[in-house]
């Protein structure tokens, strides 16, 4: 059970720790800087923090015994002479890391392997704890990659990476927008996954096209990897065949719109969401901040409100800002308005740690 949270925010990285049964802020790093996401590598205890300095670009830092050190950030290869490609706005697409949007450790059998998803869509792999990075060219060079579009940002980006706990060479990534992609040879070749999802925001002939899907977040059950959950731009989808096919979960109140999803580490039918009024408004319904939980694979949902503000709450919870610890009991989430809540009973009740942080991008148990 984890007693530590790393909170990535628009203005720094905050460490939150459990002391005498209470959660409190115990550390600040990179104060004033934009921290997009962190990773705690449970194989060796190292922490990684991705920064976006705006003017000075995207940087990556790794924890040391005494603090942090800057390490290599993923770098796109040189664009071939005479080659040009354009984004969905008809602007030349700069092959340059615009944001680090996903950081995940490789399998337990491959210490030092880190996967990194970026905007504008490059996937990178390190085999030396982030000291150097190699772009996964087979995905970047896949002809269908150019059909990816902006979703969560102007540029397409890889936001979810799932490494198969049974076989580290099998990896799923999700793209906003571009659907789900799968490799079973550590990135040497890729295939689209995600039949059965449905996109409301595209012309009818593309509605069921797996590449048109705006997956907001993809989560895989560690103990039952066949089970994958998707929080999608216009719904919740669940797969029982490793993401080959998905079924839509309908009739969820108050909404199936949201960004994050987490799945219990051992119970594949149990997952949590933070719903909002879809799509153009993106605020909690009636100003009431809620979490929803299913324990039966989406047949029914509990609406969890105890300890959460139920009046004039306009918190939005981004796709990386809901976390579940490895034991499966503790949850935490952070919001765009700087609120942070923790639950120690699977969401039945929540305690507010603070509501004065900067806008929160990512919450992860360390």
């Amino acid at each position, binding site marked *: 059970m984890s007693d530590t949270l790393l909170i990535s925010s628009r203005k720094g990285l905050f460490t939150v720790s459990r002391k005498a049964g209470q959660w409190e802020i115990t550390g600040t790093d990179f104060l004033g800087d934009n921290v997009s996401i962190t990773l705690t590598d449970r194989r060796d205890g190292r922490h990684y923090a991705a920064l976006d*300095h*705006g*003017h*000075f*670009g995207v*940087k990556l830092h790794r924890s040391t015994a005494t603090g942090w050190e*800057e390490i290599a*950030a993923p*770098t*796109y*290869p*040189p*664009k071939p002479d005479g080659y040009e490609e354009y984004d969905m706005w008809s602007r030349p697409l*700069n*092959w*340059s*890391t615009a944001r680090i949007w996903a950081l995940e450790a490789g399998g337990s059998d491959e210490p030092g392997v880190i996967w990194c998803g970026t905007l504008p869509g490059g996937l990178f792999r390190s085999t030396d704890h982030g000291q150097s990075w190699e772009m996964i060219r087979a995905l970047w060079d896949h002809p269908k990659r150019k059909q990816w579009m902006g979703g969560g940002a102007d540029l397409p980006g890889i936001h979810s990476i799932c490494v198969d706990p049974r076989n580290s060479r099998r990896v799923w990534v999700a793209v906003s927008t571009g659907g789900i992609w799968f490799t079973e040879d550590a990135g040497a070749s890729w295939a689209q996954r995600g039949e059965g999802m449905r996109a409301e925001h595209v012309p009818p002939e593309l509605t069921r096209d797996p590449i048109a899907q705006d997956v907001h977040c993809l989560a895989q059950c560690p103990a039952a990897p066949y089970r994958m959950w998707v929080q999608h731009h216009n719904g919740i989808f669940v797969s029982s065949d490793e993401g080959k096919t998905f079924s839509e979960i309908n009739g969820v109140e108050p909404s199936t719109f949201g960004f994050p999803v987490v799945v219990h580490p051992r119970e594949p039918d149990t997952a949590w969401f933070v719903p909002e009024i879809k799509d153009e408004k993106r605020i909690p319904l009636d100003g009431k901040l809620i979490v929803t939980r299913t324990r039966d694979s989406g047949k029914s949902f509990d609406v969890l409100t105890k300890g959460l503000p139920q009046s004039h709450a306009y918190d939005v919870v981004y796709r990386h800002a809901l976390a579940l610890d490895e034991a499966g009991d503790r949850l935490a989430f952070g919001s765009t308005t700087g609120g942070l809540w923790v639950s120690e009973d699977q969401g039945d009740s929540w305690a507010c740690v603070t509501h004065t942080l900067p806008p929160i991008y990512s919450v992860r148990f360390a």
Partner: protein
Amino acid sequence: MARIVFTANIQRHVACPEAEAAGRTVREVLENVFAEIPQARGYVLDDQAALRRHMAIFVDGQIIRDRARLTDAVSETSRIYVIQALSGG
């Protein structure tokens, strides 16, 4: 040799003291600086070695025009300023 000055805001990430460096173009001068301070490269240039979107370079009071290849001319007496554009927010 040209004189090159970096924005004060870069200094907390990478120490880039005011320096003299040889070169006939902005690219050549910068490459000579980066040879001494390799970590500064990624703070000024993007992955394609173009000037980062929200950075600006002035040579003798004129903003450079070739942000991709950095071919703007530099003289022996030029003063080069590597600064942040306000567009970065």
